[in-house]
């Protein structure tokens, strides 16, 4: 009996390890390839451990374009978006959660619609708008359309609705202004939600390829995902070791964040759907 149970447990562990490998091994393979020389990349059957570990592949990938600019742009755009989303989202969420006002249903419906409309639907008209306003070749087409987040407003609104009314009444009796109420009562109570949303927004925009691809045609404003994708686009044979080295540079910050804050990140993304 016990032998059967041990056998079943062992089989399960083996199956689990196999599944985990399917999801994790590609990342490992990416790193191994990034460390190989080009002649070793073209060995079939493939070798596992690189004969010679070539760290300089990373330097070569980094040096094959204005990667410092791409890197700066990625961070700048993702942080600017997050800051703006919080600046616009907190008062809006507070208004939806705490005020009753004429037209609130219409405005909330507008927020709902914004939540439903994906960038893949608006990119063409928004690009034309941006060119008509003469804003192409600035950071604005990358940042402005994301300056408010419907998802952020939803999350914050829910958090603000849970703050007990008595706390706010007490603050109002103490002649606290609305901004003070937001700053000293609402935001501290909503801290976990802010962290969740911040992780979601930063990771989304750090990873984003589609929007910057459409909105930029100048290296000065391109972001890291575009630069990494261009590593491959040269005609002729692809230098897989260099491409994978670039890939490691793109993925590493996110994977490190995931190791450190796995639970928060999972919650951020799982909740982004389950509302």
């Amino acid at each position: 009996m016990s032998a059967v149970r041990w056998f079943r447990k062992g089989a399960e562990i083996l199956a689990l390890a196999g599944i985990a490998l399917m999801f994790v091994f590609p990342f490992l393979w990416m790193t191994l390839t990034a460390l190989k020389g080009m002649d070793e990349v073209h060995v079939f059957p493939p070798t596992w451990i690189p004969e010679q570990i070539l760290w300089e592949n990373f330097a070569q990938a980094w040096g094959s374009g204005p990667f410092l600019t791409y890197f700066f742009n990625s961070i700048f755009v993702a942080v600017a978006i997050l800051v703006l989303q919080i600046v616009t989202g907190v008062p809006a969420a507070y208004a939806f959660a705490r005020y009753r006002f004429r037209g609130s249903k219409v405005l909330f419906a507008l927020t709902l619609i914004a939540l439903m409309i994906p960038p893949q639907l608006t990119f063409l008209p928004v690009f034309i708008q941006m060119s008509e306003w003469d804003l192409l070749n600035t950071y604005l087409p990358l940042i402005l359309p994301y300056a408010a987040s419907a998802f952020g407003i939803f999350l914050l609104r829910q958090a603000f609705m849970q703050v007990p009314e008595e706390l706010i009444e007490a603050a109002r009796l103490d002649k606290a202004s609305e901004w003070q109420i937001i700053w000293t009562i609402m935001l501290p109570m909503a801290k976990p939600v802010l962290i969740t949303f911040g992780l979601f927004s930063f990771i989304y925009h750090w990873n984003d390829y589609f929007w910057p691809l459409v909105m930029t045609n100048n290296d000065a404003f391109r972001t890291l995902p575009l630069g990494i994708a261009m590593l491959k686009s040269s005609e002729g044979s692809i230098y897989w070791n260099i491409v994978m080295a670039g890939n490691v540079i793109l993925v590493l910050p996110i994977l490190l964040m995931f190791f450190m804050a796995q639970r928060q990140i999972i919650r951020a993304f799982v909740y982004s759907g389950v509302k």
Partner: protein
Amino acid sequence: MRAAEKLRPYLFTAPSMLIFWLFFLYPIGYMIYLSFTSWNMIHPVKEFVGLENYQELLADPDFHQVMSNTVLYTVLSVLIALGLALVLALWLNRSGWVYSMMQGAIFSPYIISLVSVSLLWLWLMDPQYGLLNWLLGLIGLPPSPWLSHNDTAIYALVLVSVWKMVGYNTLVCIAGLQSIPKELHEAAQLDKASVWSEFWRITLPMLSPTLFFLLVVNTISSFQVFDTVKIMTQGGPVNSTNMLVYYIFEYGFEFFKIGYASAAGVVLFVLIGLMTVFHFLILSRRVHYR
């Protein structure tokens, strides 16, 4: 003082609403208008052409193939990713570090840039030196052309999509499973219901809102596939992986047929709109039945 108080909610919501109007709602209207014009992005005049773009779209055999590719890709990715996720969720919905590590492992592709995912799989699927063909060789199968043949390319993209999505679906399913009241399972066990009938009578019905939600969300997001197409196949070989958003992108940004691209965009808008409305109808029906 009172007037200021009355104005306050509008001031608080104004910045967000302005953004939503300018970059979400208005562009849709603008796109619908553009779809009735002929314009190359440079010419000063947008010439009104009525329904011509739509007629051209419907007559274009490439567009037919694009639509059938998109539907095939969506149906396969969604069904496979959802089915696998259900199995994985039932399996991994346990406490203990092994299971939480497993959940993290299968979720990790979901938070990685699609650029990385695309490049990584392009390399794994390399017909000459790729690891996947080496693996096929190990189990005695002939090598596959993967992305380089029009019979297999779209299935290769489905594989990549499933790999990326399944972890998200699994974790949402696990969240759904954990919200099923424990008493229901206990009652079933008291009644000595078999594991199988407990699954069919309790778990699946209670999980059905979650599964339905995932079905809709996955369908909408698969319908908009772009990044993998752009990086891995550019719609080829022979158009076999050209899908709706890539088609719009090509006509807009490579052929500069803005009116035509907008008409295709309106098609995407209508389809996404229908799916969203359908989702809400079902949701509101469920609320009424309670």
